[in-house]
């Protein structure tokens, strides 16, 4: 019979179709220069507003990088976090707000330091980078929590940003920030981490919004292009569902059977 294993033909069609849509998005943005513009996510707009507020109140802004787990799918979350870090550091340097970044991760520490240094440089304010701008507190989960809680109280922070790969300790730091009167802006990709983040934050990004925010902040044509491709893939899925619904309502399960050949 056909060379493709029976029952998997449509899966191959979806795989190739999705790959082409994403390549189309990337090619259109990177090679043809038509970079898609995406609306500023609400949480990123909130960062801008609250960094301004921090300057007025003379209280520092805190950015946490999250745990540096090296598993392959967390890599994409780190890239998005570093994009937001770059965006926030430039904002803080531009408005001359006191900026503090804490990390429990030895792997993320050098990457974050390099990004903050460059951001301050491009904004023409390299002297803002002091030695407590980025602090490696401890790679033990709970010791990191208590260190961050003390820092929040001591520095009397007005904004706490936690967008990235976090584990259970994010609840502790969110509550400590709320306790010291700060605004929480957070983001989590994994579904088991989103409820804690959603409950504790004033503004937050859920699931793929974290990647969209990272792409928006880094303005990298490749990521923005792949976002357009991903939207087209989701649109294709919605169209197939709608088509299937109409057929099922009309009593024919042609599409349902087609999808399983």
């Amino acid at each position, binding site marked *: 019979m056909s060379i493709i294993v029976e029952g998997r033909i449509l899966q191959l069609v979806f795989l190739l179709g999705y790959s082409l849509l994403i390549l189309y998005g990337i090619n259109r943005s990177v090679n043809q220069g038509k970079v*898609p513009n995406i*609306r500023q996510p609400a949480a990123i707009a909130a960062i801008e507003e609250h960094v301004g507020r921090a300057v007025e109140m003379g209280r520092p802004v805190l950015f946490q990088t999250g745990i540096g787990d090296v598993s392959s799918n967390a890599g994409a979350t780190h890239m998005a976090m570093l994009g937001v870090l770059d965006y926030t550091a430039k904002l803080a340097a531009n408005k001359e707000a006191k900026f503090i970044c804490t990390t429990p991760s030895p792997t993320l520490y050098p990457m974050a330091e390099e990004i903050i240094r460059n951001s301050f440089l491009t904004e023409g304010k390299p002297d803002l980078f002091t030695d407590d701008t980025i602090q490696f507190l401890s790679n033990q989960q709970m*010791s990191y929590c208590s260190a961050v809680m003390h820092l929040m109280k001591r520095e009397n922070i007005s904004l706490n940003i936690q967008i990235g790969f976090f584990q259970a300790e994010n609840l502790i730091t969110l509550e400590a920030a709320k306790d010291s009167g700060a605004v929480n802006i957070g983001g989590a990709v994994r*579904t*088991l981490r989103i409820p804690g983040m959603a409950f504790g934050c004033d503004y937050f990004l859920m699931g793929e919004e974290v990647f969209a925010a990272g792409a928006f902040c880094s303005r990298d044509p490749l990521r923005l292009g792949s976002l357009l491709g991903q939207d087209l893939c989701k649109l294709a899925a919605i169209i197939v*569902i709608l088509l299937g619904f109409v057929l099922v309502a009309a009593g024919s399960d042609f599409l*349902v059977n087609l999808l399983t050949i």
Partner: protein
Amino acid sequence: MAMDAFVGEALTVLFIILAYSYLIKDNIGFQFVQATYVGFGVGHSLVMVVKYFSENTFPSITSGNILLVVPLLVGLLLFGRLVKGYLWLYRYPLAILVGVGLGLQLRGMLKANLIDQIISTMNVNLSATVDGFNSIIIFIFVLVSMNYFFFTYRGRQGSGTIGSIQNLLMKSGQYVLMGAFGAGFAAAFLSRLAVFMGIIEQVVTFFGLI
């Protein structure tokens, strides 16, 4: 109770009290417990992996499949990550792990996460039963929630009917997703609660309260 069991139970209760002393203030007792479990955990996982290799892989190399030496050697290149200047060696076995890992995950997701979910969503049963009602609700909720995750369309979403329809779909998608995460919070709480009950039960039985 046998002597070593009693000493063991006493030690367990001591560890529990030391650990929960963190709630009053982060202290050396707590950090000792945390360092113990991290160190013990690493030691234990190394014991178990070495046990697997010594009983399964090495015998099958010596007894028959001599070719297994090649993946073993390639695997040892992973140690390049620990030696300054040899990071490039580490990338060869890592490439295999990344390629196999993502490949296996994606090929399974195509049916489990995509096609099966699409079929189950479109397969609405229109009978006037609770099940029928639920299947229509699920159909609407899935489409609306998917609408929340459109990023590039939102760029052109200005005024006019299309813009407001899109906004309405996205807003209602947000409501469905937030309801779903409320259920997620209850699950996360239930998960830790059971472990917590076991700990408190150990302390309570040790002091003979029940």
